[in-house]
């Protein structure tokens, strides 16, 4: 059963249309990411779900109930803001109790119990009597999270909640969010512009571009089979090479601008104009020797050491390709290498 349904949502601010008909159904307990570059409409969509923004047309249904014209306070939701939005004049405990108090949720004793449980969930019970300004950024964020889950909302909305944290805290928090979601099973909508975050956290990734849904799918399918140029460039910043697709000696192949051919997956049609999508980590670099057969040759233009991996910028006569290789595949700038492309990794999309 759909816990949250968006039906042909359109939104204009004055003359500028920011959402061009978004339709989406989210199952109960799913963790869904709205992923896209800034200005793609993902935050506006989240605010429409919350009721903080009205729709120009379309409808929002939460638990089979039409809430399109309901103010946020009447919708059974919780939202975590990018700035955390803790009430500065209230203690941690009072902040977490606030939603229960506003909704007259149970007796005072029951409220205290739920607050305690929510604070324990985010491991902050020992700081319950502190004021928000006495907490670190990471702790403030946990308070905001506790406040969002305390009332057991029908939908939990998260607006780029990890973007203000430093890298390490962010990784810890991602793990905690996954565990929290598994434990509580709240239907969750998460807005982010960070593709890795979206892929690692969600059951479903909704890729948005220019106020439309570009592609929906589980993380693996959306990563491995991007259907559009935008999707392939945004997810993993793949290399896009203009090719033509034709029948070769051993099945379909893509003809590169330099005349090389690369075998590709069978589920495409021959056509004159297409893009070959080569993700950076799918290119295999090998030393150029007589016993090594690559799909094409290139020379290393730049090498960037990233720790566990190395990013190479490769050059052929006609192409410039980025490649992520394991740190063990060491080549010097200027060196010539053979490049192998596993056929199942070579996707073709329409130009």
């Amino acid at each position, binding site marked *: 059963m759909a816990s949250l349904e968006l039906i042909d949502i359109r939104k204009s601010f004055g003359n500028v249309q920011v959402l061009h008909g978004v339709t989406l159904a989210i199952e109960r307990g799913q963790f869904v990411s709205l992923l896209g570059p800034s200005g793609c409409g993902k935050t506006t969509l989240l605010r429409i779900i919350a009721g*903080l923004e009205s729709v120009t047309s379309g409808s929002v249904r939460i638990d089979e109930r039409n809430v399109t014209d309901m103010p946020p*306070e009447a919708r059974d*939701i919780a939202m975590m803001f990018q700035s955390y*939005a803790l*009430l*500065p*004049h209230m203690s941690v405990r009072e902040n977490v109790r*606030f939603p229960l108090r*506003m909704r007259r949720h149970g007796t005072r004793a029951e409220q205290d119990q739920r607050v305690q449980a929510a604070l324990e969930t985010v491991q902050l019970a020992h700081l319950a009597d502190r004021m928000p300004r006495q907490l670190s950024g990471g702790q403030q964020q946990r308070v905001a999270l506790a406040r969002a889950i305390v009332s057991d909302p029908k939908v939990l909305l998260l607006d780029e909640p990890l973007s203000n944290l430093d890298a390490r805290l962010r990784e810890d928090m991602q793990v905690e969010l996954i565990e929290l979601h598994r434990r509580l099973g709240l239907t969750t909508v998460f807005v982010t512009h960070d593709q890795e975050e979206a892929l690692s956290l969600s059951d479903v990734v909704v890729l948005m571009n220019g106020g439309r849904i570009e592609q929906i799918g589980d993380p693996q399918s959306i990563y491995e089979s991007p259907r559009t140029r935008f999707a392939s460039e945004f997810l993993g910043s793949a290399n896009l090479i203009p090719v033509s697709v034709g029948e070769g000696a051993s099945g379909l192949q893509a003809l590169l601008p330099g005349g090389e051919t690369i075998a590709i997956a069978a589920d495409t049609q021959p056509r004159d104009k297409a893009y070959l999508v080569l993700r950076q980590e799918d290119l295999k670099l090998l030393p150029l020797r007589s016993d090594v057969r690559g799909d094409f040759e290139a020379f290393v233009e730049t090498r960037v050491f990233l720790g566990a991996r190395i990013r190479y910028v490769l050059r052929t006569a006609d192409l410039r390709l980025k490649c992520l290789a394991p740190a063990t595949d060491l080549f010097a700038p200027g060196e010539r290498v053979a490049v192998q492309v596993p056929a199942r990794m070579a996707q073709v999309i329409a130009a």
Partner: protein
Amino acid sequence: MVKGVPEWLKVLSWIFVALTLTFVLGPLVVVAGVSVSESQFIAFPPTGFSLRWFNAIFESNAYVQALLTSLRLAFAVTVTATVIGAGAAIALHRRRLPGTAALAGLFLSPLILPSIIFAIGLLMLWSASVGAVSFPALWIGHTVIAIPYVVRTTLAVLADSDPFLEEAARTMGAGRWQRIIYVVLPQCAPGLAAGAFFAFNISFDEAVIALFLRTPDLVTLPIQIYNQLEFSPDPTVAAVSTLMMGLTVLLIAVIDRLLGIQRFVGN
């Protein structure tokens, strides 16, 4: 290499500091000095030491009446200016009303409008529409000139606040009144307190409007001082002034202790 401050500039800055101290604090010292003088003339430096003029104030019906009028007025003005100013500041901060900029200008205009013009205008308006001048006329007049201070101090604290707090409160189920009580007013509180303090002081201290809108039964303390000075000057004038000074300093100390006055002066 940074050059040191040249000698002549140092001298100039010391002169500047000395002049500032002289003209800011000098008059207050003179008034306080005269108030404890034994002489029955207003003369500085004082001769001898006596508290008889302070005694005389509290034995004078006119002074006590004027003090009560001033206090009553200042409290009433504090309440109205704070309530109206807070509402105006919150509305201006949200920028949802049409013509927010024009309204902001209107609310702040008493700061730059010469108060004598406002006083004359209010007197004519009141006479034409209501009739004889009375307490409410003065109350309204002082409220108008006190509102800008409340608006400014409240806007200052609102500008520092998280703009998403109210939206967050909505997603937590808080309706309009709950948001005002639990979110908006607590945020405004320091600004309101400072604004209330300014409002009280402005009304208590104001002389121009009070001069135009006075009647025999409606004389504030500054006007009583003025009357006394004009018709039978004696050191009671200085004693009253010293008391007013003391009260103001006390208020500043209290407010500063509670809120820190500094953050409102800069804005």
